[in-house]
């Protein structure tokens, strides 16, 4: 349990059938729903953005009752999140999954709010600064996954709220806000 840090696990985490993919339709639906919520909740509190299926993701096993999710089960639950729009597969082999505990639109809103809060309406910033600069400390943007941030920025770009441009170094892009 130490691995889960300060995360409060739900009661049913110790219910052994929770870790076996249920075949009966109604039972399965409930099981999937519980897993989806738990995964999203955990990722949000722990600021986890990517889950690798073969990794030792702490939620997928419970050493106390000696149970763990099969690969098939993990894929089922994560695919359910993907169908809900709360996650995306990063590769065709379904080995890595991007968890959107905020949807992209929500991240975009957060960026806008961030801009307004810091008076950056007409300024320029690098992408890196947005996610790790001094202003970002204490906000949800701090340490956000780069892929997610880029997607949010692109969304805002399409809405005309900003413009993305290539910076001096190869992997550092900049953003000009015109909120």
């Amino acid at each position, binding site marked *: *349990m130490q691995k889960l840090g300060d995360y409060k*696990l739900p009661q049913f985490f*110790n*219910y*052994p059938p929770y870790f*076996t993919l*249920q075949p009966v339709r109604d*039972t399965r639906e409930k099981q999937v729903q519980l897993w989806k*919520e738990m995964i999203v909740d955990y990722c949000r509190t722990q600021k986890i953005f990517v889950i690798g299926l073969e990794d030792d993701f702490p939620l997928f096993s419970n050493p106390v009752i000696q*149970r763990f999710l099969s690969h098939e089960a993990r894929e089922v639950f994560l695919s359910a999140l993907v169908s809900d729009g709360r996650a995306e597969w990063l590769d065709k082999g379904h080995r890595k999954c991007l968890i959107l505990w905020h949807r992209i639109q929500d991240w975009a809103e957060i960026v806008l709010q961030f801009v307004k809060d810091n008076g950056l309406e007409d300024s320029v910033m690098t992408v890196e600064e947005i996610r790790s600069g001094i202003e970002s400390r204490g906000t949800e943007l701090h340490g956000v996954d780069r892929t997610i941030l880029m997607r949010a920025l692109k969304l805002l770009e399409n809405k005309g709220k900003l413009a993305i441009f290539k910076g001096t170094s190869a992997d550092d892009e900049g953003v000009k806000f015109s909120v």
Partner: protein
Amino acid sequence: MGNNRLFETATLTSSGRPVFLPNEVECQLLSNVDLEAEEESSSLFSLQSGLLILTTHRLLWFSSSSSSSAAPPVSASIPLASITHIFSPKKSIKSIFTSHRIRFQVTATDSRSVVIKVVVRGKVDWDGFLGNVWDCWRGRAWESFDTSERPCASGGLYGTDGSVRMVGVAGILRKEQEMWETTDKSLQDAFQDLNALMSKAKEMVMLAEKMRQKLLSGSSTQTSSTNEDEIGSKEEMHDWLLSVGIVSPVTKESVGALYHQQLLRQLADFVRNPLERAGGMINLIDIYCLFNRARGTELISPDDLMQACSLWQKFDVPVMLRKFDSGVMVIQNKSHSDEEIFNRIRAVVKKSEALRAGISASDAAITIGIAPAMAKEYLLSAESKGLLCRDISPDGFRFYINLFPNIDSLDVYLEMRASSKKWPLMVEQKWWRGGGQS
């Protein structure tokens, strides 16, 4: 149509097979048979298109109703003893083209003398049937039944019928001698030809039993001298005993095209005892073994068994074939209900031990009182109804009571402690105080 008031009706088992008298053996069965009674050229009654069963004791006629119809079944039972004369069928050119018929003179229940005409339509081994009729009538099997009931006379050296009574040591010796002589003659007669053997079958069975008893008692007293001959003959005896079974097996020969129909009825009758012993449900494979074992000879094939069981739904028998999702096939009483078993399962999985560790199929079999193979089927069935859910792990395939519907998603948080195995018990307190959710 006319009502049959001249003869008694025949009784049927709950599966539609006739109830036989003691020692009565079925010889042949024909379908599509008319039974007509005439008295001085006027027709008294006529029963159309039914089943005719010839036995060693009687001629039975039943109206053929394959499914439970509203009209009560009609039947007639004509004791062979009441046949006073069999008319030889007139062979003429006409008889080749018309249906087969035979006429008997019979004494009815009201002591009238009537002529019974049996008309058989369709293809049948007529000569064979005629032969059987004559054999059964002449065999007078009902008489040997009567003689065994005659009470023994008592007192005096000479018995009531004038024969010398057996008294004293000489008497015992004489009795032994006579018994051996009859046995010997019986054996000789029996093995003369197969027909005779069949008719003597019952006697042979009794003889075999006696010999078996003798062999068993013999071996227990002679501990030192066990020569090979004895062992060999003992084994032979055992083998032979195994091959004697149901007295009147329904065979393809005696029933012809109705083989499956009569088989399914006989099977339904047979199945009742094993069903009761097994708690209301029994595997098809087990029945296959038990039924064939009881038959001894004239074994039925798995296909015949499947066919017979599948036909049960078309006929009015109290048993049915049931196929589980997993493919397992069982036989159960029509009146059997799953609910009762599910209630028992429900009670078992709520016990504290089951809350903590679940139950396996073998646990269920023991605590609920059903066969292990059936237990798994029931647990799976309960799972599909949402009563249980499964837990597959290196510990095996286990079932827990289904708590998923009761979980209010992530609202219910609990700080985990080291001994978090307390959770199921807390569940019990939280959700079952006051006695049970299903």
